[in-house]
C-alpha cells in the first residue's frame, strides 16, 4: 500500500498542485513584482522601485482603512467566538430539535458575501427608512451593519467547529469534576475551555483573518460610504487599484503590505493560542 502511494502520489496531488500554482503562486509572485512597477495592465509593466510603497504609506485613507479594519476585527473576533461558543454549548445539551437548529445556524455561511451584503442592505435600509435614515449616511450604521452581517454569516460556521470540539471532550472529565464538587462555571473554565483550545485556535484564526480580509460584504453593504469612513483594507486596495488612474502599482504595494500584516498577525495569534492547548 505504502509503495503504491509513493508511486502514484503525483496523480493525486498533481492536479491540485497545478491549480495551486496557476491560481495562487504565479499571481502572488507577479503581484510582488508588480508592486515595484508602474503599470496599467498586469502584463505590461515598468519597474520603478519602491516609490509605490512610499505613496502607500503616505496615503491617509490607507491608514484610516487599517484602523477601521482593526476595530472591526477586534469586535467581530470577540462577538463571533463568544456567541458561537455559547450556541455550541446550548446545542450539545440534548435539547429537542438540535439538528434543525444546527443546520439553520450554519446556512447563512452557504450564501456568498456579495449576495449577503445586498440582502442585508435592503433589510437595514428597510428598517432605517421608517426613521428617515439610511445605512450609508453614518459610519456608525455602516460599522455595526457590517458587524451584524459578518456575525450572522460566521457564527454558524464557528459553531460547528465548537460543537465538534465539545463532543470530543471525554465525558468522564466533567463527571469527575462534578463529583469533586466543581460547579458549572468552574467546570467550564477549568475543564471544558482548556480541552477546547484546539478549536479555539482554529476559530480565532479564521475569524481574525476573515475580519481583516473582509471584502465582499464591505463592497456590497456600504461600499465605503459615507466618505470612505467604512472602507476596510481590502476594499481600499481594490479601490486604489481599480478606480485611481495610474495608482495600480500603489494598490499592489498596499496589497503586499496587507499580506505581510495578515500573515504576521495570523502567526502571532497561532503561537499565542497554541501555547495554551493541553494534551489529553
Amino acid at each position, binding site marked *: 500500500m505504502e509503495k503504491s502511494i509513493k508511486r502514484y502520489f503525483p496523480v493525486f496531488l498533481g492536479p491540485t498542485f497545478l491549480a495551486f500554482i496557476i491560481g495562487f503562486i504565479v499571481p502572488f509572485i507577479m503581484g510582488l513584482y508588480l508592486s515595484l512597477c508602474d503599470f496599467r*495592465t498586469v502584463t505590461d509593466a515598468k519597474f520603478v522601485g519602491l516609490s509605490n510603497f512610499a505613496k502607500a504609506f503616505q496615503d491617509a485613507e490607507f491608514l484610516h482603512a487599517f484602523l477601521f479594519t482593526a476595530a472591526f476585527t477586534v469586535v467581530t473576533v470577540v462577538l463571533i467566538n463568544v456567541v458561537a461558543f455559547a450556541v455550541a454549548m446550548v446545542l450539545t445539551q440534548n435539547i429537542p430539535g438540535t439538528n434543525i437548529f444546527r443546520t439553520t445556524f450554519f446556512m447563512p455561511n452557504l450564501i456568498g458575501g456579495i449576495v449577503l451584503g445586498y440582502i442585508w442592505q435592503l433589510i437595514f435600509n428597510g428598517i432605517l427608512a421608517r426613521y*428617515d435614515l439610511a445605512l*450609508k*449616511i453614518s459610519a456608525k450604521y455602516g460599522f455595526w451593519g457590517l458587524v451584524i452581517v459578518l456575525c450572522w454569516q460566521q457564527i454558524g460556521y464557528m459553531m460547528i467547529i465548537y460543537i465538534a470540539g465539545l463532543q470530543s471532550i471525554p465525558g468522564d472529565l466533567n463527571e469527575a469534576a462534578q463529583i469533586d464538587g466543581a460547579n458549572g462555571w468552574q467546570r467550564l473554565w477549568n475543564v471544558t475551555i482548556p480541552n477546547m483550545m484546539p478549536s479555539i485556535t482554529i476559530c480565532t484564526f479564521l475569524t481574525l483573518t476573515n475580519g481583516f480580509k473582509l471584502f465582499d460584504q464591505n463592497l456590497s453593504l456600504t461600499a465605503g460610504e*459615507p466618505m470612505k469612513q467604512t472602507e476596510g483594507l481590502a476594499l481600499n486596495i481594490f479601490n486604489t487599484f*481599480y*478606480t485611481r*488612474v*495610474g*495608482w495600480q502599482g500603489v494598490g499592489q504595494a498596499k496589497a503586499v503590505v496587507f499580506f505581510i500584516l495578515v500573515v504576521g498577525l495570523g502567526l502571532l495569534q497561532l503561537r499565542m493560542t497554541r501555547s495554551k492547548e493541553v494534551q489529553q
Partner: protein
Amino acid sequence: MKKRLLTLALCGAMALSLAACGGGNSGSNPPADSGSSDGGNSASGSVYYLNFKPEQDGDWQALAQAYTAETGVEVKVQTAASGQYEATLMSEMAKTEAPTLFQVNGPVGLANWKDYCYDMSGSALAGELSSDDFALMDGSSMSGIAYVIETYGIIVNTKLLGDAGYTMDDIKSFADLKRVAEDITARSGELGFSAFTSAGMDGSSDWRFKTHLANLPIYFEYEADGIGDTDAIKGTYLDNYRAIWDLYINNCTCAPTLLSAKTGDDSVAEFVTEQAVFYQNGTWAYGDVADVGEENLGMLPIYIGVGDEANQGLCTGTENYWCVNKNASPEDIQATLDFMYWCVTSETGLEYLCSGDHMGFVIPFKGNLESSNLLVNIANDYVANGTTSIKWCFPTMPSEEWKNVLGSALTNYAADQTDANWETVRAAFVDNWAAEKSK
C-alpha cells in the same frame, strides 16, 4: 495485488475524467475561432467591443449579430456594469484576447490609455465625421472618435406641471424653477406628486449629480475665465451648485436622508408612475421615460442662476470616444475599423444607432438620421431657437476619484445640510481638483 489493481483502475478513471474535461474545453473553443476563419476570405480578423453603455447592450449585441450575418466577421460585444468600465477595461486589456474596440471619456481618460490607442487619422471612419471637433487628438494622433452626441437637462412631465397650474413657459430661470418646485412641495399632499424624483446617490444614479450637475458650475467658471480646462478650479459658482442641490434634495419624493439608498431605477419609476414632475437626465433615457407619453414630455435647461438664463440651452456634448487597440493584430485592427465604418454608414448600422426603437443616438457622422427620439428632437428645437448649449466640461474633471469623493460629500451633505458639511463638498470640489490634477 487486488488493491494495486483497484488503485490502477481509480487512477485510470481519474485520468480519463481529466482528459474528458480537457476534451470538452478544446471542443468548445474552436467554434468561436472557426466562426471567424470560415467567415470570409477577405477579413480574417475579428472584433471585440467593450461597450460602455449598459442601457444599449441589447442593441449592440443585435447589431453585432447583424454584422456577422452580413459579412461573416465575428463581433463580440461585452458590456461593463455601470461604473465599472475602467476596472473591466483594465482586466480585459491584460488578456491575450483583449478588446479591439474600447472607449475613453475624453482627454483625462485618454491620458490613461493613450499607449493603447491606434492612430485613426486618415481612416475611412475619420472621413465620415461631420466635424473634426469630434475627434480626440493626442498630439497629431487621432486617438479617439466620438460616436454619439448627447444632451441632458431636466426632463419634465408637462401634464403634471399643468395639474400644478404651471406651463413650461413659466420656468425661464433658476428663480422660476425654485418658485414652482417649492410651490409643488408645499401642495404635494393635495396634488399627489412631488417636484423632483429622488436624487439617488447609489452608484447607479450618483453620476447625474457628481458629474452632470457639477458640469454647470465648471462650465460657467470656464466661460467666465475664458478657458477650456484648468489645473486649479476656483469654485466661483459653488453657491449656485449648492442652491440647485438644495432644491433637488428638499423637494423630492423622499426625505433627503434616504437619498444614499435610492437608485437610478427608483428615479425612473417615480417619474414614470407620475410621482414627480422633474427628472434630471438626458436623451439616452428616452427609452425609460417614453411610457409617460410623447405629449407629456418636455425638457428644461438646468438653471442654476448664472449667466444669461433667458438664452440658456440644454447641456450637449460627448464623453464617448471610440478607440482602437493598437496592440491588436493588424487583421483585427482592420476588421474593427471596417466594423466601425459599417456602423455609421450602412443602412442597418444607422438604423440601430439612430432609430428611437434602438439606441436613438445623434451621431457626429455624415450619415446621421433624423431621430425618432423625442428628447433629441426637443434638444434640436432648443438649438434651433437660438439658445446657447452648455458644453460638457466634465471630461476635464481630474479623475474618477475626484467624482467619487464629490459624490460622497454630496450624499453626506444631503443627510445633514450644515455649512460644515458643505465645506466638505467645497473641499472635494476645489482642493481635491488641484490635488488630483497634480497626480
